[in-house]
């Protein structure tokens, strides 16, 4: 396979020197869903030295419409995504050191995983984990690339500690969630568009072409034909608790992390978001009904019947997931529906 990177080294901004740099780098990717499949495949084909893939989920039929590494057989086998991804990626490029980590990317776990890493790719599906990645990135001075999408709408931002504003400068706090892929749907072209932006930035960072790194926040809608690029240099906040003069890394703090507790003997997990929310029950209820769930409610709570679980959501964001004792499963269900 001598020739395998020839079209990439021919690209003047990479060249043979750039290829050597790519081969020497370690990328940590959090998430192996839609964005993770796409980014993982591009980095592997590009010949990165090591790729660590972290995911807590397994492959389901509803993933196949947009998650490019997985096949029908992976669904039949109910393979964990990180494992299924690693197996396909090794067939694609046996030269890349692929490590699959099947776990929930908690702040503690991130602290362990980040050692020796040159770049973090965000392929998560919720802001809680993203904000933890943002803090870890600042604490250890490792660049990361935010990417997200829902429906036909996607966005990306490259964060270089010491050079650019961080995600906390721009969002200020974790947004109250409107839509997730499980409530607003998602089409594969949106995913590919985000992946294209994230992986281009990844290659610039891996070859250390800092001049070329995108310094604006891009967002686009592939169905509504919108594309915009927002300069963010002004957003840099010297008082930011993640990247300012006196950082406290709030999203690594146990206080600010989603709490999940098994309610003993009740086969139920309680989830409490880090900050009180004001959920809009009418909108949420419609979205969940559109998804085919049976939803009942009153002004104080919504009850959602799922296959094997029942979810009860209070309007401050707290929820009970009945029918499970598994904290990770309960958190997954919660974040899928509420972001």
């Amino acid at each position, binding site marked *: 396979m001598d020739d395998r990177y020839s079209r990439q080294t021919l690209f003047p901004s990479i060249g043979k020197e750039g290829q050597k740099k790519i081969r020497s780098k370690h990328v940590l990717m959090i998430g192996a869903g839609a964005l993770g499949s796409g980014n993982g495949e591009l980095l592997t084909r590009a010949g990165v030295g090591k790729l660590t893939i972290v995911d807590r989920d397994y492959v389901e039929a509803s993933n196949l419409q947009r998650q490019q590494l997985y096949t029908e057989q992976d669904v039949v086998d109910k393979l964990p995504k990180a494992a299924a991804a690693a197996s396909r990626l090794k067939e694609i490029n046996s030269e890349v050191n692929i490590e699959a980590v099947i776990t929930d990317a908690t702040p503690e776990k991130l602290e362990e995983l980040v050692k020796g890493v040159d770049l973090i790719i965000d392929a998560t599906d919720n802001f809680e984990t993203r904000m933890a990645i943002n803090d870890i990135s600042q604490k250890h001075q490792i660049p990361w690339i935010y990417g997200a999408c829902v429906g036909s709408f996607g966005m990306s931002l490259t964060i270089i500690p010491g050079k650019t504003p961080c995600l906390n400068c721009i969002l200020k706090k974790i947004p109250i969630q409107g839509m997730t892929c499980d409530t607003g749907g998602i089409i594969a072209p949106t995913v590919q568009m985000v992946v294209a932006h994230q992986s281009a930035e990844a290659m610039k960072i891996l070859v250390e072409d800092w001049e070329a790194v995108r310094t604006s926040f891009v967002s686009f809608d592939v169905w509504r034909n919108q594309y915009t690029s*927002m300069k963010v240099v002004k957003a840099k906040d010297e008082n930011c608790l993640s990247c300012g003069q006196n950082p406290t890394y709030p999203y690594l703090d146990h206080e600010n992390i989603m709490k999940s507790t098994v309610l003993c003997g009740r086969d139920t997990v309680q989830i409490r978001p880090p900050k009180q929310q004001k959920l809009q029950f009418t909108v949420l209820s419609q979205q969940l009904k559109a998804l085919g769930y049976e939803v009942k409610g009153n002004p104080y709570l919504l009850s959602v019947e799922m296959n094997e679980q029942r979810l009860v959501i209070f309007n401050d964001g707290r929820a009970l997931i009945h029918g499970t004792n598994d904290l990770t499963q309960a958190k997954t269900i919660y974040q899928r529906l509420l972001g």
Partner: protein
Amino acid sequence: MNKVLFFAHLKDAVGEEVIELDTNGKSVVEIKELMKEKYPALNLENVMAAINEEFASDEDILQAGDTIAFIPPVSGG
């Protein structure tokens, strides 16, 4: 006069991608409130704002001819 741009599902709530409005001298947060009155279906909480393709904070003031865009952050992936 100013242009107000709505991205993604915000466009659907408004019914148009761009509207023209005289919001001269108003701050971003004031424009958000104005929009919420005008379009009850529009939710601009936590929505990012850009003035002339630059990040804008709640207190930034619009000048004549400026374009303000509203971009909702999303979390899917």
